[in-house]
């Protein structure tokens, strides 16, 4: 497990983003954010690809554990979504889109839980698709996105197996990531999901492609994740109402953890940030909300703010109270 300092670093990036954003020092203005905007779907696709490449998610010998964590993750999602929905309804004249908030917060909580990431990302994709149209009419578009991502992964595979130098290979990888993230973004679907499909395709293509992709994407992932956290912080619009809901979000996630502890008898612990590919739980928790803001528009900025602030609070609580594993 990575040192807790890394998690603190991730939390501080969000805080720096919020400080530099329009609500703070106004350095990360909408114009500047527009400049770095293409990096956001790229970063989300990278996260999805790393999740898809993670072979433990598909390990049949781990089926029992996967079932248990899936159930736990779904329960956490339902608890967080339901609790936040109720909390938001209690607030008079809530300016936060309640249903959308519940959906992104719940799916984010599930993504950051130990539940298998492919399942959690698919749930997040369904949630975002639902938010986009207010109905489930967008569901076929998920299949559509998956098909396009698979086609682009195929193009990426052709290129990865025909490169002539490491620089060329990296160029092809960045191009493929941009295509996958960009295509999802164009269709107002989660780039995270497009990336997941591509990652699964490359995992199936054999160890050579899988390892190459994992190395190249992991190399890009760290700065991109940092950028993602900064952008999330800058985009979040904070208010008293948002902060109240953020506290509720953090408490609900803690309650979810406590419930799981009671059900499984395992001691609580901070979710491992490095199951296979350096995926930060903070990035995962925020990803559905960020995707929803991109798909639907700035109306969802308060929902993003709730998730960002709530995740930061939750992270701080974990960091302060939970026992941390010693580094090996």
């Amino acid at each position, binding site marked *: 497990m990575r040192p807790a300092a890394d998690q603190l670093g991730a939390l501080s990036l969000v805080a720096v983003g919020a400080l530099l954003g329009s609500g703070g020092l106004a350095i990360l203005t909408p*114009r*500047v954010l*527009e*400049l*770095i*905007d*293409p990096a*956001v*779907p*790229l970063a989300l696709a990278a996260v999805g690809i790393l999740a898809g490449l993670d*072979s*433990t998610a598909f390990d049949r010998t*781990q089926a029992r554990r996967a079932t248990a964590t899936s159930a736990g993750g779904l329960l956490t999602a339902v608890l967080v979504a339901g609790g936040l929905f109720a909390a938001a309804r209690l607030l008079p004249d809530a300016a936060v889109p309640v249903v959308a908030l519940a959906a992104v917060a719940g799916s984010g909580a599930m993504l950051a839980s130990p539940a298998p990431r492919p399942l959690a990302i698919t749930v997040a994709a369904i949630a975002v698709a639902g938010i986009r149209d207010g109905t489930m009419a967008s569901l076929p*578009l998920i299949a*559509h996105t998956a098909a*396009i991502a698979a*086609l*682009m992964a195929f*193009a*990426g595979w*052709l*290129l990865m*197996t*025909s490169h002539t130098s*490491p*620089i*060329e290979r*990296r*160029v*092809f990888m*960045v*191009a*493929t*990531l*941009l*295509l996958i*993230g*960009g*295509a999802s*973004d*164009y*269709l*107002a679907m989660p780039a995270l999901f497009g990336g997941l499909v591509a990652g699964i395709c490359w995992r199936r293509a054999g*160890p*050579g492609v899988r*390892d*190459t992709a*994992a*190395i190249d994407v*992991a*190399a890009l992932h*760290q*700065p991109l994740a*940092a*950028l993602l956290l900064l952008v999330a912080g800058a985009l979040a619009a904070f208010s008293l109402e948002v902060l109240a809901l953020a506290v509720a979000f953090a408490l609900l996630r803690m309650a979810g953890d406590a419930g799981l502890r009671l059900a499984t008898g395992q001691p609580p612990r901070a979710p491992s940030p*490095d*199951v*296979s590919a350096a995926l930060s739980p903070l990035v995962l928790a925020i990803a559905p909300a960020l995707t929803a803001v991109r798909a639907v*528009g700035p109306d969802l900025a308060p929902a993003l703010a709730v998730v960002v602030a709530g995740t930061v609070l939750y992270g701080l609580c974990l960091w302060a109270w939970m026992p941390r594993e010693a580094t*090996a």
Partner: protein
Amino acid sequence: VRRAFALAVAVLAVIWVQWSGGPDPSGSAATALALGFTLLGGALVGDVLGRFHLPRLTGYLLFGAVTGPYLGNVITESMAGQLQIVTGVATTLIALVAGLTLSVDRLGARLRAITGFATVTLAVLVTGLAAAAWLAWPWLPIAPDAGPMARLAMVALLAVMTASFSPTMTAAVITETGARGRLSELVLAVVVIADLVLLVAFSLALAFARHETAAVNDTGIFARLLWEIGGAVAVGVFVGALFALYLRYAGREVPLVLLAVCALLTQVGSTQQFEPLLAAVAAGLVIENLSVAQGEALRAAVTRGATPVLIIFFAAVGASLQLNAVATLGGVALAAAALRLGLVRLGTVAGLRISRLDRASGGYAWTGLISQAGITLGFASVVSAEFPGWGQQMQTLIVALIAINELAGPILLRHGLTQAGDLATSPPRPLVVVSNREPYLHRRTPDGGIAATAATGGVAVALDALMRERGGVWIAHGAGDADRLVVDAGDVVRVPPQQPAYDLRRLWIEEPLFSKYYGGFANEGLWPLCHQVDVRPQFRSDDWQAYRAVNARFAETIDDELVADGPVFIQDYHLAMVAPELRARRPAVRTALFWHIPWPHPDRLRICPWHREIVSGLLSNDLLAFQLERDRLHFLAAAGEDPEADVELEASRVNYRGRHCSVVAVPIGVDYDRIQELAASPDLEAEQCRLRELLGLTAGVVGVGVDRLDYTKGIPERLAAIDRVVRLRPELRGRLTFVQIAVPSRSELDSYSAIEAEVGARVAEINARHAVPGRPPLIRYHTTALSTASLVALYRMADFCIVSSLHDGMNLVAKEYVAARGDDGVLVLSAWAGAAEELTDALIINPYDVDGFAAALVRAIEMPEDERARRMRAMRRIVAGRNVFSWASDILEGLESLWTRPLHYAVRGLEGTSV
């Protein structure tokens, strides 16, 4: 075909996306898609043009133009517009690279001459263009009926705009081609200086035009100009200084911070009305000239990441090319382009005469002054906005001119760089590899025939692959009993035997010279000197004399075989004195030496009576590479102490007797892909069955250790730890088998024969102590070398692998085990092996601490499956990411670069391992 198919699939996917999502999504949603498509297509088309020796940049431009809104419309107008967001940052980045390329130190005395050259060239060009425009005015589609003063103002504007150059394009061509030399520096300096002058001239001409055609008095022009230039330079200097400090004291996430700096300069430039390009050049200049080591580190980072930026920038420029303007004013624009070309040539000839720059490079300077892009386009946009009517006509003409010069400029510059020798056009020079051990041995077979045996070590395999690709000569001591029978009169045999690709030149070293050189000085002296173990180094004068004599023979043979002056790649501690001997014969030869074993601390080094000679000898190389940072630092310390060489710690360079030697750390890797192929081979299972039978592997838990039988490998310590494990966990008796492959070597030396005897006795003793009737012995001791395929099969069967070296340069067994495994297995690795620096997810042990070692073994045996998988995956990523080919190419690229560019290496931990 594969790439074309990939591009076709990508085109299909993009069209599908556009069809599904509608042609015009909201906001910037299409930007990432456009960027991805542009990057992919541009890279592939650029690659095709590169195969025809044309600039790849032209390919990027062509791709953008063909798929852009004016032709193919795959990149729609809105997508092309969104790409412009990125081009602002890209332009600033390229300008920063341009600044990094301009070293005042290197330009030195030429700076004055270059300024003179630029001034004369510009004067000829602007005067000629103005005269031609004045004369041709009635036929130009701008404002034929303008009065004399208005016409003069318009002509002045047109001449300045037509004359302007493109620092961005010039810098980009130089970056992309990797050109380095006097012409590159000259044209970059000229375009930057000339465009500064033109910026001032344009502002003056604009004020004049306003006065004459719009009757406006522009009183604030000088203040604005001062801010545009002075403000830009001031901001650039400030940002450059801050960035240099960041690189020096933080140095993390450099690419991200670099992009942030470029975005900042672009953004601040556009809001504060100063020229961001100029600010970026100033920032680059500050970093390059005030902070040399940081400049080199930054340039290395930029070079690694510049390709995607260049591709996107030029494809975006291509997509924005207004081809309709070319269609409308093609004839006039073509004539203007031809006239400009002629005047540029005339101007450079005059400039050369007056400035007295050398003609060898300056004669081709005109090729760098043809491209036009952003600055010219910016001028035209200002004119169009200020003077609707004739200004728009002028803009259309200028845009058509840019389109022509943008396509022709990079081709001409590449040609110029090639002619001036700034660009290596010839294929890589044949390589000379020198090692004690040969890659192929010829031996007599029992039936009287001769068989060639390939060396199986990772380094030998990698260098063999490189030599197959590059061609050249490998010089080594001929040790096979049939080696003399297969060589020609020049002692050369073509290898590999099945598909000859390079020469193996054999060197015959007779006895007792060989024993004194190899067994004596190299293995009884240097080997224990460099390894911290309890074996005392033995130094004898006659061994040293033999060592020098054999090294001189190697140098003589290299001299025989060298066609030109290198490059020569020398291997290891046996050949430390080859470079000085070779340099006496060939002063200009370029050599690199890789020291595979640890380098001792200076205090220990002084044990060797000839340590000064050895350090001095190694400093005769141009490039000296070690496995680890620790070794590099020890060597630099030794070089600074005795022979008191001038050590530049930041640049990791040693200046000694008028020569420079760069010292780097480049950890060696294994042939990951080949090991993975062997691990996935259908023959693996059969080989595992054979090994099970051969080694009697029936136990539930299998461990493995593979070593040359050497006292540095910590084999007795390993056996003691296994003994302790079974004492602690008696239930493992009969259930655990440890396979120790230990191939005897250097057995003629006392220290080696002693360790052979000790290991044999301990194995017998431990097996007797823990014997269980009917079960296999605890330790299977095998002293015959296994082939790589057999080793991979064995690694796949082993639940854990032990590397317990008491001191080791790297230890490739650790990396081979990781490369061979799936998501399972545990590596128990000595902290004293170089591999421990990289494979931090192994169970790191201290082989001297038997209890701790045994505890680690128990942990390895009982480790949960998910922890094993996590650790192994993390290690595999490291091993796959840095294989033996990247090691070799890092060193050879470093060596190759010595031919064309000055040596600066800034080495910082693992990041700095790329030379």
